[in-house]
Every structure is written in structure tokens, then in C-alpha cells.
């Protein structure tokens, strides 16, 4: 991959009519090293068609126009760019609508910036997703077909839910993963609940996969969530 094309593909196209929020999102993502281009719905659609967008962030309603209509049209044309839909419409019905129209993730306002950044990272990763049967980080290896996990030569027994939790981390190594993302992706809970429950699940998982005397594979990111240590 040449340098220019790599730069090009890094562009995040942002469709948001609330100027202040748009500026905040832009500043936050740029601070994390992303290139952000604010755009209208039409401009974003064009950018997506020519493959000029790595990720699209779309507000549900932009200047009174429902962006899902355009998104649906893009998906019909076969445009595959990952799309994060952000919206003040919070009901599960609306979320389902957003995802059906072709959104890859749906984030309701108000949200914390860490949450947004984490989700954009996760979406960017999705492009590289290939049909692998084995996931690995360090000496931890997961076989998705055999449903087994090994740390070195030691087999680790995980409960089905713990397996899915581990799988989610392995699919997003080195990325910040928020508690809300885990609730939605691993448990399919689309409502706010006391997130310390997630912490307990993580700490149980750690007890199973970590080896004594070495730093934990899953680290806490203050104020944001967790991260699988990719360099372990």
C-alpha cells in the first residue's frame, strides 16, 4: 500500500449538522490521529462511492433529512464503507431501523467522546476482518471452530459467554473497547445499566486467561473501558 492511498483511506467522513458537536468530534478524532472531513449527506455519499472514506459517521437527521435513506441507497449500490449512525432517537426500534438500513453501529446522543472514538476504531478494524478460524494475541490462541482457547500449551476452559467476550477482544486487539460496546456486542443489551457488572465479568475472564507474574492481557483504560494488549 503506497503512502498516499493509505492516507486517503484513513479519512473519516463526518455528517453532522450541529456545528459544535461536529467540531468536538473532529477535534477528538484528529487528536487520536485520524483525518476528519465534515460533509453534507450528498458529499459523504460521493466520497463513499469513490472509496474515499474509511469510516462514515452519520447523524440520523441532518437538516431535517433522514440520512438512512441515502445509506440504504448506498448499500443497495454495494458500497461497503463502515458506517456509524449517531442519533438522538434512542429506542431499540430506532436502533434496529438504523442497523437494517445498513449502519454497522448505532450510538445514541448524548455520548462520551471516548465512546465514539472507540466505536470508530472498531469499525475501521472491521474492514480488515477476514474469515479467520483462529485468533491469536501473544501466546493466547482461540480456535473458533473447535471453540477452544490455549495459553501456550495450557488449555483454558471458558464458559460460552466468556468465550464470546474473549473473542470480541481478540477481534479488536489494541483498540479501546467501552463497557457499552461489550454490553451491546457480547450480551445484546441495548439499554443503560450499571456497568460495574461488566467489570466483574472482565475480572473473572482475566483470572482464567492471565498467567501469574506477567501483566494482564486485558488492561483498563481509565475513563473509557478496556483494551487487549496487542504486544503481549
Amino acid at each position, binding site marked *: 500500500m503506497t503512502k498516499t492511498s493509505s492516507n486517503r483511506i484513513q479519512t473519516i467522513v463526518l455528517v453532522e449538522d450541529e456545528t459544535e458537536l461536529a467540531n468536538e468530534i473532529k477535534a477528538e478524532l484528529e487528536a487520536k490521529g485520524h483525518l476528519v472531513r465534515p460533509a453534507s449527506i450528498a458529499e459523504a455519499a460521493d466520497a463513499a462511492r469513490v472509496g474515499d472514506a474509511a469510516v462514515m459517521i452519520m447523524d440520523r437527521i441532518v437538516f431535517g433529512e433522514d440520512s438512512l435513506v441515502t445509506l440504504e441507497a448506498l448499500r443497495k449500490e454495494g458500497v461497503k464503507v463502515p458506517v456509524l449512525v449517531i442519533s438522538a432517537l434512542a*429506542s*431499540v*426500534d430506532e436502533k434496529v431501523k438504523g442497523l437494517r438500513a445498513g449502519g454497522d453501529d448505532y450510538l445514541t446522543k*448524548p455520548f462520551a467522546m471516548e465512546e465514539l472514538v472507540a466505536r470508530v476504531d472498531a469499525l475501521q478494524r472491521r474492514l480488515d476482518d477476514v474469515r479467520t478460524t483462529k485468533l491469536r494475541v501473544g501466546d493466547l490462541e482461540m480456535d473458533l471452530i473447535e471453540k477452544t482457547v490455549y495459553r501456550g500449551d495450557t488449555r483454558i476452559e471458558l464458559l460460552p459467554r466468556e468465550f464470546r467476550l474473549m473473542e470480541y477482544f481478540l477481534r479488536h486487539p489494541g483498540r479501546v473497547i467501552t463497557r457499552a460496546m461489550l454490553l451491546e456486542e457480547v*450480551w445484546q443489551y441495548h439499554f443503560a*445499566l*450499571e456497568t460495574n*457488572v461488566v467489570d*466483574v465479568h472482565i475480572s473473572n475472564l482475566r483470572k482464567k486467561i492471565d498467567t501469574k507474574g506477567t501483566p494482564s492481557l486485558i488492561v483498563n483504560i481509565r475513563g473509557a473501558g478496556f483494551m487487549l494488549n496487542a504486544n503481549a
Partner: protein
Amino acid sequence: MLEFFRSSAVRVALAFVIVTTVATTAVFGLVYFEIREANEVRNRLILEAEAAKSVDRSVDELRTAFEARLTHDLRRIDYAALFDSSHKVMFGNIDKLPAIAVDGKAHYVAATLVPGSDNRREPAIFVARARPDGTIMVLGRSLLESFAFRRIVQAALAAGLAPMLLLALAIGAYFARRASRRLTVIQGAIARIMKGDTQLRLPVGSRHDTIDKISRDVNSMLDEIGRLLVQLKGVGDNIAHDLRSPLAVVHAQLERGLESPNDVQLRESVKQALTHIDKAMLTVTALLRLADVEYGPKSNNFRSIDLSAICTELFEFYEPLATSKSIKMTLETQSPVRIVGDGDLMREAVSNLIGNAIKFTPENGTVSISVSREDGLPLLRVRDTGIGIEPGERDKIFQRFYRTESGHRVPGSGLGLSIAAAIANLHEFDLRFGGNDPGAVFEMVGRRK
């Protein structure tokens, strides 16, 4: 005027007039034709029979009979004459042989000279019949009577129809006027309501007609919209109210941070401010969620779901948390307990109840969840061994933002129970406090329909 003809009442009246006219005319016409036909057929038969009967009589007999007929029997036979073989009249009241076939059959002659008159003509039927002696006998009957009958029918039709048309038009116009007057009043009311006079309602009369019915429906719609507006305003007020205190705290913290002499204290203040903002954001999310459940469009994801399965799943989700607090969790299900509902919403409600129970239960306590059917009604019970709820507080726990005295130190939005209650209500379930046994018991039970 154009407006007048657009009124549906006028249109109906006009259609009514047309239909009545056509129907009445048709009836009159039918009656006329039937009578005339019967009359003419009868006359023809009589004439033909008379002519046949008279063929064998002698000329003198005929002469006497004709004279008698023409003087005494005017009602049946108007014309009678005998012509010789050269078509010259021998006697009778016709001068010239009518231009009809001499075949003993009745024929219609449009204009026949009336005998003894000055060129007066009338329609008539004639029969001409050849006799054995070569003479031709002609009998005839005036049709003047049946034509006079037609004129009577026409006059009657005109006399009856004209007033009826006028009456129908007048009634139509009256109704159109009345309807348009009422519509004008309603339009005026709607205009005032749109201008902001939201307490105003459409006038409803005592007639119970369509306009009254629609007015009543519109009024109940306005009532419902008004109710929603008040509720919406309540939600807005709540949000504003509940955001004011965290904002004030954040304000104070940031101010203190700015005045602090060193960076360490500034950072500490900013960090605290952020915590409060996060809390405020949680509250906003919870409030919006509550408003959405209570007043939002009804979920269209209602289907048959298993309450037992939902509780089992949430039990597994929460058990590690309980274990970490050394709380024992038990689950008793009578699988499956099927209800009609939205699985995501039910999960949210049950999760609130279980989360609360764990939150308010001290170490080494127990949280028991049971799902069953009692008297045919689905029942979910969450029981804890916490401090329970004081009798004085039991009515308030379902109110928004209410936190029990003892619960103040436990984090939360104070909206969890409200959201659970709203979701229960949406599913036609009641969420109720089931007493202290020894800690709080919450029950969600289906309503009897």
C-alpha cells in the same frame, strides 16, 4: 355562489331532484301508455267484431242500424257508412272512403274529418269490410278521448312535478346553508385553536349527526394531544430541574479549580467536574429513555417471549457481580412462562429489579428471583435481604428521582424503578412492592384482562 354548489348538501339535493323527476315521469308515462293501449285494443276488437257481424245483413237493415247507432250508441261507434262498389257513399256520416285496406281489420287514421264540422280533424280507427253484394261497410271510432286522456296526464304531471321540484330544491338549499353555517363555525374554532387557544373545543350540537360525531372525535383528539403536551412539558421540566444541581456543582468545582494555586488542585477539580457531568449525562439518558417508554411510539416488537428464559439469562449476567459482593443468588423458574411482549424492554425492566436488589443487599445476603404462574397470571418476584423499605417511603419509591434515605449513598439515576414500572405498564403488568421479607420484595405481575 360557486361555494354554494360545491356544498355536498346542495349536490345531494340536486341529485334528489333529478331522480324524483325521472321516476315520477316514468310512472306517469307507464300509466298513460298502459291505459291507452288497453283502450285502443278494445276499440279495435269491437270494431272488427261489429263489422264481421254486419256482413250478412241487408242494406236496409244496415241503414236502420247505422241510424240507430249514430243517434243512440255514440259511445262505441262514431263513424258508420256504406259505400257502393264505385266507392261512393250510399248512407252514413263519412263522405269519402278512408284510405285503408278493405280487409275487415282495424286501421289507424291520423286525421279524420269530424262529421258535420268545419274542417275539424281527429285521430280515429277504421274498419272497412267488403260485403257479398259488392258494397263496402266502414265503421270507425274516434280516438279523441284517449288523446284527451293524454293531455290530462300531462297536466297532472306538470301540476305535481313542478311544486315537488321546488320543494326538493328548497330543502337541499336549506340543509346546505345550515351545514355550511356549522362548518364556518367549526373552521373558525379550528383557526383559533391553531393560533394557540389550545383550551378551545369544537362546538358539538345535540343532533348526533355526522358533523357532531366528527367534532366530538376531533375534541377527544385535542384532549389527548393536550394531555401529551402537559406530560412532555413535565418531562422537560424534570430534565431541566435535575440538570440544574449537577451543573451548579460543576460550575463551583471549575471555579475552585481556576482559583487554585497549583496544577494538581486544578486537575483534581476538573476530574471531579467531569464525574458530575458524566452523572448528569446518565440522568439525561435515563430520562429520555423513560419518556420514550412512556410516551414514545409503541414498540412493534411485541411477540411471544419466555419470561423464564429472560430471567435465566439475566441471572447468569448478574451472578458474577453478586458473587463478588459475597451475595448468594438463587433462581426458581417454572419454564417456560410465555407472555406477549418486547424482549429487549422486558430484559431492561428485569435487569433494573435485579440490579437494584444486588445494590441494596449487604455482604453475605441473598437475592432470590422466581418466575411462576399464579392463578394463571405470570409473576416475577425479586426478593433481597437488604434493609427493606420504610413504610413511609413505600408510596414514593416509584416516583421519579426518589431515592430512599438509606439509598442516597448508592450511585444511580433514581429512575430505574420508574423505567421498570413504565415498561411493566406497557406490557399490562403491575410492578408493586411486595413488603419486606426481610428485605424488599418486588413483584411484577400480569394484569387480569
